[in-house]
């Protein structure tokens, strides 16, 4: 199941604006789309984990929000609220980032007549994140060799040490990665002046249409019900 990168962009924008503004019912309707698409990509483990955490925080929030029990609980409740509101956004972005290849993205942007000067930095960014995660994992490995783990008595006693040990080397290597990636790109002839071709086929198909129609339906429904004052699940 392959979507056109433009559909994904549309999905990301519409889904995130609905998720941020509308009541939870609509956000569930919206992030169901990337969840289903992720299942097509065989990422069922991610989807499962996502839904269990999401449901736990939503239910927990609904159950606990009426209780009045001190600072610790309200901190906990507010954390759950933030989690339940922000998580849908992450699944949408995760799907878009994970499923889009750099060249597809560049080709789709070229079709939309977006200038290369805008798309190339975006493409570099898309390539940058996985590399940073890879790097972070390597640094995590090195830390584990030294007996410094995220959850251990030692880091609990001095939580800032983890910042020093993990983030500082990551920042150092991140600057290096950025440099090396740009070298990789320029020596292979990526430049704003030249016109690219693309081996990947981009184009709209049935599944794109379905996603478009579905997203629009949800939005129309939300706007209509909102205007008539019958917004579900306040």
């Amino acid at each position, binding site marked *: 199941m392959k979507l056109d990168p433009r559909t994904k962009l549309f999905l990301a924008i519409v889904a995130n604006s609905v998720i941020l503004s509308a009541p939870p019912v609509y956000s569930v309707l919206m992030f169901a789309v990337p969840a289903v698409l992720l299942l097509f990509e065989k990422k069922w483990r991610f989807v499962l984990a996502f839904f269990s955490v999401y449901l736990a925080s939503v239910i927990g929030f609904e159950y606990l929000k009426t209780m009045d029990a001190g600072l610790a609980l309200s901190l906990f409740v507010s954390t759950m609220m933030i989690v339940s509101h922000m998580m849908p956004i992450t699944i949408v972005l995760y799907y878009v980032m994970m499923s889009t290849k*750099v060249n597809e993205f560049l080709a789709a942007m070229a079709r939309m007549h977006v200038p290369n000067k805008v798309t190339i930095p975006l493409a570099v960014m898309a390539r940058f994140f*996985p590399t940073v995660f890879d790097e972070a994992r390597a640094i995590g490995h*090195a830390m584990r*060799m*030294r007996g410094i783990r995220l959850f251990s008595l030692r880091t609990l006693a001095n939580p800032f040490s983890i910042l020093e040990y993990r983030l500082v080397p990551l920042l150092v290597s991140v600057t290096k990665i950025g440099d*090396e990636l740009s070298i990789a790109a320029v020596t*292979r*002839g990526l430049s704003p002046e030249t016109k690219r071709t693309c081996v*990947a086929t981009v184009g709209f198909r049935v599944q794109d249409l379905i996603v478009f129609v579905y997203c629009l339906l949800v939005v129309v429904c939300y706007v209509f019900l909102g205007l008539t004052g019958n917004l579900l699940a306040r």
Partner: protein
Amino acid sequence: MNISLKNVSFSYTDSLDNAVIKDLNLEIRSGECVILAGESGCGKTTISKLINGLIPHYNSGCMAGDVLLGDKNTADMTLAEISRCVGSVFQNPRSQFFNIDTDSEIAFGCENMGVPREEILQRIDDVVKEFRMEHLIGRNIFHLSGGEKQKIACASVAAAGPEIFVLDEPSANLDLKSVADLTEIVGRWKKAGKTVVVVEHRIHYLREIADRICYVKDGRIAHEWTPAELEAKGAEYAASLGLRCVNLEQLSDGVAGAPSSVILSDAQAESIYETSQLVDVVELGSVEQDLSKRPTTELLVFKDLYFAYNRKFPVLNIPMLTLPRGQITAVIGHNGAGKSTLAQVLCGLCGTWRQKRKARKYGAYLIMQDVNHQLFTESVLEEVLLGMRPQNEKTALEILAGLNLEQYAYEHPMALSGGQKQRVAIGSGVSSGRDIVVFDEPTSGLDYRQMLAVSATLQKLASSGKTLLVITHDPEFILNCCSNVIRMEHGKIAEQYPLQGNQDKLIHAMLNV
């Protein structure tokens, strides 16, 4: 296409006072294959950057003189124009990719040049056949081994079909079979009339193809030979200039200098090592032979080393691994045979949580291929103190002294040279008190002298009672310091033997795997 460097000087700083390249003149004719050799830091990589246009277009600095490709000056061309006639392969396989999957990566250069889709697909097909890498198609780049990545890098440059190829230590992470493939590829490029410039320490694989070897010293071309001339001067001469051996087949003649640390005559041994299920007591002592006459060696035994990205295709599947204690064991095998995965599982970095917990108990320490990942504190001393428990500055300084690093104790680790960084990483391994130290390709990209230094450090470490496992593709290095060899194939141990008496077998295996 001709390359000519005319009176070129370059410095990464603002003035030419301490330039890396000094008044260099180099003429490379069309269709020639030239090796730029020399010790680390002599400026040979800078020369390659001058040719592929990264200098002056990407790296800032102070430059004088002209670099001409054909009849065009690189200073007047844009990088995109230069990239159409010069294809570059870099040393670090991790960061020379712009795509996340292998197919798009191979297509990337062609796409940037605006080649039509059908032709790109055709070229990908050709290149894949030429490089014999059907199994690497459609894979995630992050799941490939270093050597496989290097192959993809070569293939993607080849697909774009430039006139000039610039390779910066392309063989640093390759096994000898992939190196042989590389030889074939370079040979094919040369036959097609392309100009090839290779920056290398290891010359052996190009000795039949290269037209010239230019020895760079202090930013100048100090010597120039044909490969035959260099070979005629003998191995000692090459070694004295810091070059690796010119002919691998000569290695087996010169094995007289085999390591003195070889104690293990055969695998009879008794073991008194037990910490967990994974490390079991094994008694292999045979009854017939008089054990007291033979030098005995303890064996460390690891069980159930298993790892898979996909359950059907395990990357690593070793039911039992035995390592002689206090000795250096080399792990050889193809790129992607599961060597690095073995190291990671052994050190508890990947695998199930159960494997990890067991690994934590017996504790093996991994010195990674890229030591930059492993150094993160403010000073060398702190680096050694970090994993030490209880922290004791005096012991730390003693460890540093043992590695000839005491004068750098208060310097920033990132300010040191590559070899020194590696010794700091080794120091942190020693201070963690682990008995097993695993090295992942400690000599990749090192010149002869640095390689000798590393093997001396390793031998010292082994003689202090540590058990060393070294993943390597470097036959010279194995002959220099290892005492046992494990050959891996498809995630399994294909054979394991002591090195002494089997040197020919080793070289044969490495050349023909």
